[in-house]
């Protein structure tokens, strides 16, 4: 099917698929794992919650194994034939276009009260905020995995590393909570974007407004 045929087909459809079933499953399994990690992490960390929950060994084990399994949904979801769309979206999230940079500069200009460029940047499937969020979750998640593993299997490592790993793990956990709250706030502010993660589809109008370069196929070079 050529690009023109695709566009022609899509101009007839009122809704288009943004996230396929695999991507949605990976997203919601990740969300569940993060929720368990945050709750068990809090129950290991905050004294009032420790008093309420206790059972340190059990909570530790849950936190540990859920943490270790965190990369699995994404890895499984990105393999084989069913992972095609997810893999392509990972590529889209990785790559930034000039338009993305323009969007980011526009945010800085708006924040500092400078006049903004007249033309709106033609963004692809993901805006730079979403790209940064995904990259932060990927990189930060790996750091949490590494520091967490070091804290569990600490014996070969010097004490200063363990102290450093605790320091990084705790502060990064706080950053994750802030990031996830922001992520949820953005989702609730744009119900159609949220619906895309629930049922998969967005309207052509939404795509034209938020992701024009995705709609016309030019963000997939």
């Amino acid at each position, binding site marked *: 099917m050529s690009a023109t045929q695709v566009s022609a087909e899509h101009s007839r459809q009122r809704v288009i698929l943004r996230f396929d079933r695999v991507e949605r499953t990976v997203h919601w399994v990740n969300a569940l794992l993060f929720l368990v990690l945050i709750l068990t992490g809090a129950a290991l960390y905050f004294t009032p919650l*420790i008093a309420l929950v206790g059972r340190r060994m059990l909570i530790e084990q849950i936190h540990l194994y859920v943490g270790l399994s965190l990369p699995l949904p994404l890895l499984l979801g990105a393999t084989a034939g069913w992972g095609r769309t997810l893999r392509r979206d990972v590529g889209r999230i990785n790559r930034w276009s000039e338009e993305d940079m323009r969007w980011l500069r526009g945010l800085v200009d708006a924040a500092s009260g400078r006049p903004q460029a007249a033309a709106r940047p033609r963004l692809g499937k993901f805006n730079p905020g979403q790209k940064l969020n995904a990259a*932060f979750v*990927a990189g930060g998640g790996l750091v949490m995995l590494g520091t967490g593993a070091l804290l569990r299997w600490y014996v070969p490592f010097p004490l200063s590393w363990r102290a450093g790993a605790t320091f990084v793990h705790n502060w990064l956990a706080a950053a994750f909570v802030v990031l996830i709250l922001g992520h949820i706030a953005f989702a609730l502010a744009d119900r159609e974007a949220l619906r895309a993660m629930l049922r998969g589809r967005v309207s052509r109008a939404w795509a034209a407004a938020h992701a024009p370069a995705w709609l016309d196929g030019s963000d997939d070079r």
Partner: protein
Amino acid sequence: MTERETIPSEAPASGVPDVPPTRLPGDEAAREPWSRPIGRRTVLSLLGLGALGTLFGSHVQAGISSVLDSLHAGSVASVLPGGGQFTIYTITDGYPAAPKDYRLRVDGLVRNPLSLTVAELQSLPATRLTRDFQCVTGWEVSNVHWAGVRLVDLAEQAGADLSAGAFHLTSFDGAYTESLTLEQARETGAIAAYSMLGAPVTREHGGPVRLYVPEMFGYKSIKWLSRIELVRHAEPGYWERNGYPVDAWISGQAPGQAA
């Protein structure tokens, strides 16, 4: 409709006419200034920062602690990671309350078993220490004041048998146990503490009586201490059966063995 994304083009890249045929692998960024792998760079930067934080974070943490100390911002410090405060653990379903008729028992291989109220414990010769509390997971509280009775003094008071080589320690929370050899107790000056942070040991911190073992990780300092039993050999306690070293020296070896 099948669940497949249909835009953009599904044609393989080689079939798309506007892709330059001489594209070299790994050279895309240079040839296509519109596309930069910023996602990958972000991930790699975070990994680098994480590694740096692990290697040098303890210094940053110490800095934060001392700043908060000098500001007397204890309430802030108690919430912030690395605030130099206790994270108070428990392995049961909460912080257990001491029974009304609480007694600290000293028994096992002794001629004269003891059963002491807190007041009776306090009437014995006291040992006062100002030492750091170091958790095995990395956090530390500096300069904690401790007061209590040395384990070896309690063993002497109870008339420990010559065959006794270790202490087996039990918590009234019903789960926590610990052990310490007689030699380690002598060397570290471990105490059955009834005072901590300048006040009676609180329920959360393991009151009315807990152990404090200087120079060893915090898990050795068993909380809610109710029984000190003299035994022949040390046997692994609760955390040690779950993978922690029985010899919990912070420095990695007994002070006497240091080169």
